[in-house]
């Protein structure tokens, strides 16, 4: 019923006192901070690279390249080359979604990615204390679980946003259909 996108609301942290209080001071304050910090620490080796996407930064892509395989664990091809191609196509699909999103929502998603790619907020809000490329699979499962089950609306919103962007991008791709038994659209003569 819903579609490839559920963004978090960083816009409201700056302007919305109600949301700020509702979310709980600790989580919100950190997310708020995430918007204003400088880009990811140099330890995130990918951060300095130039992005090949229209909207995703190189740091966003590096983060997503680690989160996508955990969100979709069990659903991606096992063959290494096919796996890598699938992850690349999922990131491309997320970039297409951003290109078609309302301006305010596009900004909110970029705000979420900002939180997840800046060293301080990534550590304190997501509990990922290393760069994404050094985080273990279990670290990332723990991060997703903690946001999914958080008492804070903002973190649950962030989880739902990540889930929808990633799974929406993969299951729109015909390569995902054989595993789930979907035969695709019928031919029309």
């Amino acid at each position: 019923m819903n579609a490839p996108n559920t963004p978090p609301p960083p816009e409201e942290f700056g302007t919305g006192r109600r949301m700020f209080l509702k979310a709980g001071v600790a989580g919100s304050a950190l997310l708020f901070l995430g918007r204003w910090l400088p880009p990811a620490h140099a330890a995130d080796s990918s951060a300095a690279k130039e992005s090949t996407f229209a909207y995703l930064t190189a740091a966003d892509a590096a983060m997503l390249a680690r989160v996508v395989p955990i969100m979709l664990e069990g659903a991606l091809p096992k063959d290494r080359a096919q796996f890598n191609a699938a992850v690349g196509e999922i990131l491309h699909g997320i970039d297409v979604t951003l290109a078609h999103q309302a301006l305010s929502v596009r900004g909110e998603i970029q705000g979420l990615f900002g939180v997840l790619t800046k060293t301080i907020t990534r550590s304190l809000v997501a509990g990922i204390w290393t760069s994404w490329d050094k985080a273990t699979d279990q670290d990332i499962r723990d991060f997703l679980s903690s946001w999914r089950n958080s008492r804070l609306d903002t973190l649950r919103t962030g989880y739902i946003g990540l889930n929808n962007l990633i799974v929406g991008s993969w299951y729109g791709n015909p390569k995902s259909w054989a595993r789930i038994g979907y035969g695709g659209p019928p031919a029309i003569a």
Partner: protein
Amino acid sequence: MANTDNVIHGSKLDKDLTLRADVVIIGTGAGGGTAAEILSAAGLKVVMLEEGGYYRATDFRMQEADAYPNLYYEVGARKTKDKSITILQGRAVGGSTTVNWTSCFRTPTETFAFWTKTFGVKGYGDADMAPWFARMEKRLNIEPWPIRNPHNDVLHRGARKLGWVVEAIPRNVKACRNLGYCGMGCPVDAKQSMLVTTIPAALANGATLAAQARAHTLEIKGDRVVAVNAIALKQNSVDPTGRRIRVEAPHIVLAGGAINNPGLLLRSEVPDPYERIGKRTFLHVTSVSTAIMPEKIEPYYGAPQSAYSNQFLFRDGVAGRLGYKMEVPPLHPILTAVSTLWFGKEHADVMARLPHLSAVIALMRDGFHDDSPGGSVSLLSDGSPVLDYPLTDYLWDGIRHAYASMAEIQFAAGASRVTPVHMDARPDGYATLADTKKAIADLSLKALRTQLFSAHVMGGCGMGADPKHSVVDSHGKHHQLANLWVFDGSLFPTGLGTNPSLTIYAMAARLATQLAEAAGGKIKPTT
């Protein structure tokens, strides 16, 4: 083929434009499309403004990955302010009629009676509206659909077994091939949407259509709107190109839906002495129950909606505890995946069962009780509208009741396992009705744990006799401005209790005919 000589694409516009017309219509969905045909047929010069792009059957490839970004607001996931409700709303020439699931119902008698009694509207008795329903049913070939796919048969069979009311759904289709992809735009022009009926007719009558053109503000002098200022949009219907379209017309019709119409009025700072604009906006908030069936369902093939149950629509009368209508949603891979808020193995396992998955949805009949005041539209800092829809205990009571009813139907139809779609329910569901009911009783019903949806935006420019409680009168005319009308679902003073397309077609046909007469048009008698 539609005459496309008088179609403007905002993305291709290389200079600013000024257009003049007798009537400018903002929005080309069920309300705007219907009004455009009638007003242009009366000899009036009509300009239609549409935020979305002009896509046709040849563009519709039955791919969710194309359809949601191109044909829906916010990539198919427009959200309420706190992100707790996901709204499916079309954004294309034809509006939501281009992507809806084709279910067409007459308005419940109880709803019209409630409007008359509570809001003092005049001319909304069943007898007043019957000829307009009949006219639009004929125009759009609306008839009960005789074929049930296996998915809709789950609802039909389960309800029958329980002795509950269940009926066939009338659909606006002609030579429908029962493909199942209505939500991605009909690839064979079988759906009798505005895109293939009233809009081509209006173009043939000399109307002009500007697509990828977002109405930004109404220009007001005294008690009149003198022009609509629109901005041209790039191919994505989001980013402005920098070009502008100005339409000057003595009659202005709003038909952009219950979120966009209030947004335009608020941006334009139209007179609103009682602060009614954007208030009482309704959604038919919808909850979902999925079931694993022993037999293959293939819930993505066949007409998406062909059976419904009104067993609990008025479970406690019209104005008592919240009632709901039960239907079936199509389950394509993206829709299913993003409605499954697990990750890793649990998510992969749910998806692997897709051919055997089925679902029932319950649409809450909002707006008939003091504890169901609906939402309110306000503007974000960038001027775009957002709907704040508070989730009340009254609403949760209806949702919890509906989870149990849907599970009863699914088990009666032979389900192996049933899952109320909620973040705390087991992803593989429960094996018995008793276990499911126990789980439902224990669910914590709150925002962003309970998955809520809407495909029906209504209200926000409600009609009524008293300007203190409404935005427009029974003719859809604005209470404060002399030449501004609202002809779409945003004038409903409550939710309907049924899918709104046919109500909008019929009301727009009637109100547009009244306007055509008032504006000096020649109305030909219809047969």
